[in-house]
């Protein structure tokens, strides 16, 4: 299997703070991979480096074998990367429908666009709010909307930063099922999450980031059994299932 996304000696500093520290990370095509780690470990920063929102202090980023380190964010998106941010990024003054239109109009128009929007709205449980301003959605609804926009791009690689924050357990589960369905259709997924139930549900592989470095890597079972990870991250969980 080839790596879809690969970083080589990636570094990012803010002033004196090393937020990404020599990261050599590989994401395989077709996998669902979760990135976990303490608050401030540098997960969101890594995402921003992948997307070109931050430029690295040093190191390279390869996508499908191509060096994308110096590409602009939109150019990376056009290569098939798509993202849902930690803080919902939506078009606040526009209607939910328009939000989706803007994401979908890349590859659809006319009647098929309208159909796809209707389908998505149903799927996101936002049909009733279709013509509301996105600003007036509840927090969780905004998360859904943003996920909807991210998958509308029909990405090859989907980056999800805390997709289920603020969702109820059931919704979290639904989201997990959605991720698995996307994955079954061939989408590679990299998700940051603190909700371990979700991680267990979707992750084929887990990477733990700590102080900007890769701290551990393995299957969910391996990671949850790792005492060092428990020390820095999980705390003392009484495993109830």
């Amino acid at each position, binding site marked *: 299997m080839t790596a879809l996304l690969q970083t080589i000696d990636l570094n990012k500093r*803010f*002033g*004196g*703070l090393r937020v990404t520290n020599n990261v050599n990370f590989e994401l395989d095509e077709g996998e669902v991979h979760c990135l976990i780690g303490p608050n401030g470990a540098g997960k969101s920063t890594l995402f921003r480096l992948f997307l070109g929102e931050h430029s690295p202090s040093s190191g390279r980023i390869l996508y499908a074998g191509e060096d994308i380190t110096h590409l602009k964010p939109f150019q990376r998106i056009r290569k098939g990367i798509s993202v849902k941010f930690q803080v919902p990024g939506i078009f606040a003054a526009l209607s939910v429908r328009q939000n989706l239109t803007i994401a979908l109009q890349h590859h659809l128009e006319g009647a098929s666009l309208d159909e796809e929007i209707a389908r998505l709205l149903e799927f996101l449980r936002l049909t009733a709010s279709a013509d509301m301003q996105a600003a007036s959605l509840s927090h969780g609804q905004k998360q859904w909307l943003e996920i909807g926009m991210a998958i509308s791009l029909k990405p090859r690689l989907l980056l999800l930063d805390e997709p289920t924050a603020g969702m109820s357990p059931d919704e979290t589960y639904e989201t997990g099922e959605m991720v698995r369905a996307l994955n079954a259709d061939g989408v590679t997924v990299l998700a940051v999450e603190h909700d371990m139930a979700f991680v267990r549900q979707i992750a084929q592989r887990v990477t733990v980031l700590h102080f900007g470095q890769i701290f551990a890597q393995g299957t969910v079972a391996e990671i949850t059994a790792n005492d060092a990870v428990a020390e820095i991250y999980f705390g003392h969980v009484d495993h109830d299932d």
Partner: protein
Amino acid sequence: MEILSALFAFLYQAGDAFAFLVLAACGLAIIFGMMGVINLAHGEFIMCGAYVTVFAVRAGLPLPLGIACGTLAAGLVGILLELLVVRHLYNRPLDTIVATWGISLIATQGVLILLGSTMRGVGTPLSSFTFGDYSYSQYRLVLMAAAVVVLVLLYLIFNKTRFGVHARATIQVPHMAEALGVNTRLIYCLTFGLGSALAGLTGGLYAPTMTMVPSMGATFIMEAFVTVVVGGADVFLGTAPAAAVLGVIKAAMTSWQGQLAGQISMLIAVIIVIRVLPNGISGWLLRERG
């Protein structure tokens, strides 16, 4: 002596330009830089301060007290306007352009109608001094000192006092400041009042050196905006270096090629500085600090 005289002359000119930029900008730095209100009536607050100062001095007060009156009057007018108009516009700052432009029209023409097209000034206090080949106005040194004092005071107020912290919190996330117990309406009112008062102070300080006409504020407004914007979001970190950079450029070009070059070079400097530092000088300073 030759060189010393020339050097002093240049420093004096740069200082003079610096003082003008700082004093023109300080009130705006608060109202625009802090509150995001694009106050096109800034010049009219300056005019208000100048007029009240002149009236007070003519009524027999010494100039410093007159300036204090001008400052106070502009501050009160600012508070009044905040209550009546500006208060309703915080969540749509761009509309403040229109509203304050309207206020500016009313103020300029209103003063013209009420007080006539022009008014007798009070004359520049203090005398002149000679250094090397040139003689200078002492009062201009007072203006330079005033600029520095204002900068220091503002820095202290906004970074070291509770009011300053509350003001900045209010401007950044108003509803959270309110929910944490900050009386945001009061803060807005006082901040706007402070900005207006500073504009009034500028008017009072410059009143003795200028023609007293209702439109006198217009000569400050361009310089004020340019300084504040080149300074960037953090007013106190930004305004001083911006005024210094622009002041030196303006003084150098004016002495070399005349007033037109001074004016145009300052505008071009603005374009270049913003191109190089798209978030203004303070944006750059803050990023560097990390």
